[in-house]
C-alpha cells in the first residue's frame, strides 16, 4: 500500500508537462510538419543515388560500431570489473573520455594523428590505407564516440550482479568460458540491449566528427547527417527534412527494438 495517497500539488505535473511539451514536442511537431510540407519532393530526394549512398554508409557505420562494442566493450567491462591489475582504474577513466569531448575535437584528434602531418600517416600509407577523408576514418570516429555506452552499462550491471552465480557455476565444474556463456552473458543482456540502443542512436546521429575526418565527400564519405547538412546549405528542404525524419525514425526504431528485446529476454 502506498504511504502517500494524497496527490502532489496539481500545478507540478502541469508545469512539468508544459515545459517538456514546449521544449520537445514543439520541435518534433515542426519536423513532422516540415516533412509533410515537402512530402512530394521527399520521396524522390531520398531515393536518389547520393541519399541512398549516404544512408547506407551511416547504417553500415552504426552496425560496425555495435558489433565491435558488443565484443570489445563487453570484454573491456569484464576486465574492469573482474580483473585486477595496476592501472585498471585508468581504463574506466579512458572509457569516459569520449563523453567529455566535442565532436569537432574528436574529428580533429584523429585528423591530427592520421592526417598528412600525423605520426601514424607513414604507417598507414605503407599499408595503402587511407584514413582521413576515407571510410576507415569514419569508422574510427564512430567507434570513439560510441565507446562509453556499452562499457558503462555492462560495468554497472556486472558490479551489481556480483560473483556468486559465477562462483556457483565454477564449483559445478564449468570452465571459465562456459561460465561466461551460460551465466554471465544471459545476466548482462539487459545492459547489452539498453546500451545497444544508445550506441546505434549515437552512431546514426554523429555529425561533427565525421564531418571533420571525412570531409563529407559525396559518394565516398558522405553520411546521412552530412547529407542533411549539404541539403540545408543548398536549400534543398525536401531532402533535408526527409533524411532527418529517416534518422529520427531509425533511432526510435532502435530504441523500440532493443526495448522489446529486453522485455522478451526478461520473460
Amino acid at each position: 500500500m502506498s504511504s502517500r495517497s494524497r496527490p502532489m500539488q496539481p500545478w507540478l505535473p502541469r508545469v512539468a508537462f508544459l515545459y517538456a511539451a514546449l521544449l520537445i514536442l514543439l520541435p518534433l511537431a515542426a519536423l513532422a510538419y516540415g516533412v509533410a510540407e515537402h512530402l512530394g519532393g521527399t520521396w524522390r530526394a531520398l531515393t536518389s543515388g547520393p541519399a541512398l549512398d549516404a544512408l547506407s554508409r551511416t547504417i553500415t557505420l552504426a552496425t560496425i560500431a555495435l558489433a565491435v562494442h558488443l565484443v570489445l566493450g563487453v570484454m573491456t567491462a569484464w576486465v574492469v570489473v573482474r580483473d585486477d591489475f595496476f592501472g585498471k582504474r585508468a581504463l574506466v577513466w579512458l572509457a569516459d573520455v569520449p563523453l567529455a569531448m566535442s565532436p569537432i575535437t574528436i574529428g580533429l584528434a584523429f585528423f591530427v594523428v592520421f592526417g598528412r602531418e600525423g605520426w601514424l600517416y607513414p604507417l598507414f600509407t605503407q599499408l595503402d590505407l587511407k584514413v582521413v577523408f576515407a571510410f576507415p576514418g569514419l569508422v574510427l570516429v564512430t567507434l570513439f564516440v560510441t565507446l562509453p555506452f556499452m562499457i558503462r552499462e555492462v560495468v554497472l550491471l556486472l558490479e551489481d550482479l556480483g560473483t556468486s552465480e559465477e562462483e556457483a557455476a565454477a564449483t559445478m565444474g564449468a570452465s571459465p568460458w562456459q561460465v561466461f556463456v551460460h551465466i554471465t552473458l544471459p545476466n548482462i543482456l539487459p545492459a547489452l540491449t539498453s546500451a545497444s540502443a544508445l550506441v546505434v542512436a549515437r552512431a546514426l546521429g554523429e555529425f561533427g566528427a565525421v564531418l571533420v575526418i571525412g570531409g563529407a565527400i559525396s559518394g565516398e564519405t558522405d553520411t546521412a547527417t552530412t547529407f542533411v547538412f549539404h541539403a540545408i546549405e543548398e536549400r534543398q528542404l525536401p531532402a533535408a527534412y526527409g533524411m532527418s525524419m529517416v534518422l529520427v525514425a531509425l533511432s526510435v526504431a532502435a530504441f523500440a527494438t532493443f526495448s522489446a528485446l529486453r522485455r522478451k529476454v526478461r520473460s
Partner: protein
Amino acid sequence: MIRLHRVSKSFGSVRVVDDVDLTIAKGELVALLGPSGGGKSTLLRIIAGLETADAGEVWIDDVRANDLEARQRRVGFVFQHYALFRHMTVADNVEFGLRVRGVDPAERRRRAEALLDLVGLQGLGDRYPSQLSGGQRQRVALARALAPEPGLLLLDEPFGAVDAKVREELRVWLRRLHDRIGATTIFVTHDREEAFAVADRVVLVRHGRIEQVGTPVEVLDEPATEFVAGFLGEANHFEAELVDGMLQIGPMRLPAPDPTHAGPLRVVVRSYDLKIWAQEPGVGVVDRVIPLGDRVRVESTLDGGVPLLAHFPRRSSLLRDVTPGARINVEVTQLRAWPAAASP
C-alpha cells in the same frame, strides 16, 4: 478526545477502512490491534491528517478535523521506520517542530535537550541518525514528535523495526512515558502481547472494520467475535452442531453455553482452556508433544479428523502418560460459540 464517526476510505477498489465508529477519551493509551493490512495504519493516518477519509467525520477535541491539514492538527506522529531527517543532527530533528513554528534558537535548544534527557538520549544531540541504533532512533522520533507539545500522540507500529529484546524495553518505557506526560496516545500494532502490555484499551481491527473495543481483560475473556477470540491467543476453531441441547464437536459432546442458537455453529476454545489426560478409549490420539520452555504444546487429532491444540504448564500432572500415540480424553473449561454466519 478523538471521535470517529462512520469513517471510510478506499484505495482504488479496496475498502481499507469500512464504516468505523470509535471514541477515545482524553489521556487514554489505546492500541489498534489486528493483522497486517487490516487498515489500522490507514486509520491512524486519517486521524493525523496524512490521508483524507472518503466518508465520515473526524473530531479532535470537539473540533471537526476533516478539512484540517496535518500541520494544523497538533498531532505528534511516530513512524514505523522512524522517518528521521537523515541530513539533520538528532538535535535538529527534535527541534524541527519548534523551528517551523518560529520558536527562537535558544529556547528550541533548551527544550530539545530536555526532551533528549526525557527519552534517555542526553548528549547525543550532535550525532546523525545513521550513527544511532534502531532503538535510539525510535526514541529520537518520539522526542521529535513530543517537542511541539501535541495534544495527541500517534505511533504506527513503533517497535516493529526493532529487535525483540529492545522491543520489550521500549514497551515498558512507552507506558511509563505516557503515564508521565498524560497525552492521549494511540498506537498501531499487530502484536497482541504488545497491545496488552501497554494499552488501557484495545481496539481490534480486521478488514477495515472494528471487531471489538475493550480493556485487555474484557476482550480476552469476552471476545465478541470468532476472529477476536482466535486472534488473541492460540485457539481451536471448531464447527459444531446443536444436538439435544448439547454441542457436538467431532466425537465430543459439550454443554452448550447458549441453547437458543440453532443451526451450524463456530466454536472457539483457547488452547489453555482445555484439559487433556491419557485415557482409554478416549476421544482422540496424541500426535506430538513439544516442550516450549515454561509450557508444553500438545497436538492431537480427535476421532473424525478434527485437529486439537492444547497448552499446559511444564510441570502439569495431567501430562503424565500423554505421549505420541496415546489415546486421550478432553474436557473443555471454557468456550465461546457464534452462529456460522457468512463472514470469512
